């Protein structure tokens, strides 16, 4: 971990709008080739954090450093290797996809037509690139939004709710695209989302934010593994289970129950079951989904 370069560092970010404190000291760090998922309930401060990182809103206190440049003191340098989509991919609807990309390309040095074509191919819009955006579906707009965000080969890509409003097919495509970008173009990615399944399959790190505070930052596996040792048994009947299984168990239905034990205990339980003429069809360690972990951490969805 330590040899990886630090791309983005947010230190003790505070944001006040009027008397309301939206962010109360957010710390986020992204290293090279990280895909960090910023998750939290609606109104937790995800979008605000992203806007502070991008310099779209004033920082009340704290600092944002991107590639070693402070966003407040040295905005143009800090932002020059960042690509982003905030909220929706807001594009110029009366222009074609290509014209939109050209506008973005004009504002960075050294982006030629070849690079635009390359990016268009990357997001798979070759066939529709000369259509007006107003004729695009939401999925295509998202992809074009990503295209314009990665034109200048940023090393940090920031996406705010990138799969919002996409159908399952679109979500899968987006996920594959982002994974490929992270590998191929060596980008670190910051994704905010409340779609946990999306984060789970895409990110290697998560940052859980609630009420303007980061309550957990860690590798995805660690978050999920924290709760382990839960085994699920599928049997022909659970009716008289408690007469012979001494371990603490939880009957889910007529055919399934769970037991929370150490691994070594599992064969003993199986043996007990067999001895009592219960047919065992399946024994499995249940991995906790991110959703469960998330709900457990945040303890519901409370917005101040």
């Amino acid at each position: 971990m330590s040899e990886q370069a630090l791309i983005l560092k947010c230190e003790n970010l505070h944001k006040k709008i009027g008397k309301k404190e939206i962010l109360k000291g957010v710390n986020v760090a992204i290293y090279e080739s990280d895909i960090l998922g910023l998750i939290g309930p609606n109104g937790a401060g995800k979008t605000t954090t992203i806007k502070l990182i991008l310099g779209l809103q004033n920082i009340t206190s704290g600092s944002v450093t991107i590639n070693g440049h402070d966003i407040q003191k040295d905005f143009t340098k800090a932002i020059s290797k960042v690509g982003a989509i905030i909220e929706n991919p807001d594009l110029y609807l009366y222009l074609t996809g290509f014209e939109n990309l050209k506008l973005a390309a004009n504002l960075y040095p050294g982006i030629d037509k070849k690079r635009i074509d390359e990016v268009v191919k990357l997001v798979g819009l070759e066939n529709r690139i000369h259509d007006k955006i107003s004729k695009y579906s939401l999925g295509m707009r998202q992809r074009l939004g990503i295209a314009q965000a990665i034109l200048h080969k940023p090393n940090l890509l920031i996406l705010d709710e990138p799969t919002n409003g996409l159908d399952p097919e679109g979500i899968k495509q987006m996920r594959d695209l982002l994974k490929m970008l992270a590998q191929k173009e060596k980008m670190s990615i910051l994704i905010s989302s409340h779609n946990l399944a999306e984060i789970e399959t895409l990110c290697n790190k998560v940052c859980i934010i609630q009420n303007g505070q980061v309550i957990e930052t860690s590798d995805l596996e660690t978050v999920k593994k924290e709760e382990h040792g839960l085994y699920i048994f599928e049997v022909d009947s659970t009716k008289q289970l408690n007469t012979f299984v001494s371990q603490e168990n939880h009957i889910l239905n007529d055919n399934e129950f769970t037991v929370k034990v150490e691994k070594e205990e599992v064969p003993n339980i199986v043996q007990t079951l067999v001895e009592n003429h219960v047919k065992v069809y399946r024994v499995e360690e249940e991995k906790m989904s991110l959703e469960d972990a998330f709900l457990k951490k945040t303890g519901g969805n409370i917005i101040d």
Partner: protein
Amino acid sequence: MINLIRNEMTKILKKKSIYITLIITLAFIILTNVIYQIKMNWDSDYLDNEIAFYEEQLKELNPKLASDKEQYVDAKSNLEMDQLLKQYGGTNTWQGEIIRTKIYSYIYTLNCHEYGVGEVALEEFTQAKQTYEKMLEQLKNDDWKAFAMADRQEITIQLKQAKEELAQAKSVNAEKKVIESLEEQVKTLETSKQVAEWRIEKNISYDSGYLNDALSVYESGSSQIRNYEKENDQKEYNEKLQYYQTLKDVNIAKYDIEHETTSGKANDGRGVLLRTFDEYEIFIIIMIVMIAGSIVSEEFSKGTIKLLLIKPYKRTTILTAKFITCIIMLLIVILLVMGMQFVVGGIITGFDKYQTPAVVYNYNTHQIQEMSLISYLAQLTVAKLPIYILLMTLAFALSTLFNHTALSITIALLGYMGSSIINMLAIQFKLQFLKFFVTPNWDLSQYLFGNIPQFQYISLSLSIGVCIAYFIIMLIPTYMVFKKKNIKNI
């Protein structure tokens, strides 16, 4: 910066609204040029009505009754004049002019004699009848020069007499007042003689053509100028304005007569082109206010501002690029409107008209100055720019401060409409405190070529100062707000 400006231009030029407005403007330009060329032929209708009216009147009156006599003679003379006018194609022909100004009096004299109104001596009657018949003959032969010659001869004689009277008055040391009035008479006659001589020399008939009008402008204007210059007492400012206007009209009329040009003609393609800003100003303002009022706020309402603000440029640079784009668009719009007028006017009234240079009267040197149309239009445009830039800045500032496109456009347009009312009030009621208000000051074209402003309390340097002050006052909060603005959720 240049890339930013280029992007802004692309965004504007790809929008349909600007082209729709341009097409409407073009339609209006075509309409304007066509309307100027349609000869209003009210004449024949009007004459027919008059003739019917007088005929009716004649039926009701009895020339033998003493009480009706005078009315009868009046009506009959008018009827005969109208019939004659109708015969020669109305009042706009040279005959029309002659009939109304010269022949009518003879018709009246003859009628007076016939019905016994007043005392008409037999000698006078025969002479009148002779002259009348001679004139009718000349009308028939289309011989306007005969009238011109007669005019000149008559004026020459009058002038000679007047000069003799003046010399005599001077020799007997007559009262100053008498001498002055005689001098005035001599000068008036000299002008008239000049006009009569020009008429023959330059072949200017009495028809309602431009040069005939120029002759009458010269004649009447010259006497107004003499009156103004003679009186030493305190002058009202509007009299002075009138004097400046007349000075220009007379000198341009003189130039045109001498050069046989139509440089002062206002309603051909060239004339309308030179008055582009008078005719089409509202279109220029609508287009530029539309652009400036939406260039910032539309990006906010569509959310695209976020894309722009995370590009590696400072916010002030982005705003400056947008403002410069507005100014470039303003120049393009002005050029387009002029270009459309050039082509449309050229097609309708002929492109050869554009060969006549622009002719202006320079109040500083008191001389007529010729310049190319392009040079004149360039000077005029520069002088008019403050109006457009200030309105544009107003729309731009409102658009940035309130993120409300419709509001910015509406307020800027209302400001333009209100400006003429405020200026009128300022001038009419001499509201001196309005001299620091922007609208009486922003039209620098009123100072062109040494002219004086419409509003008496302002001067060129004050106007420039006021314009710059308003410009800066509007821009400072715009920049401050845009620089610090939080991009809220859209």
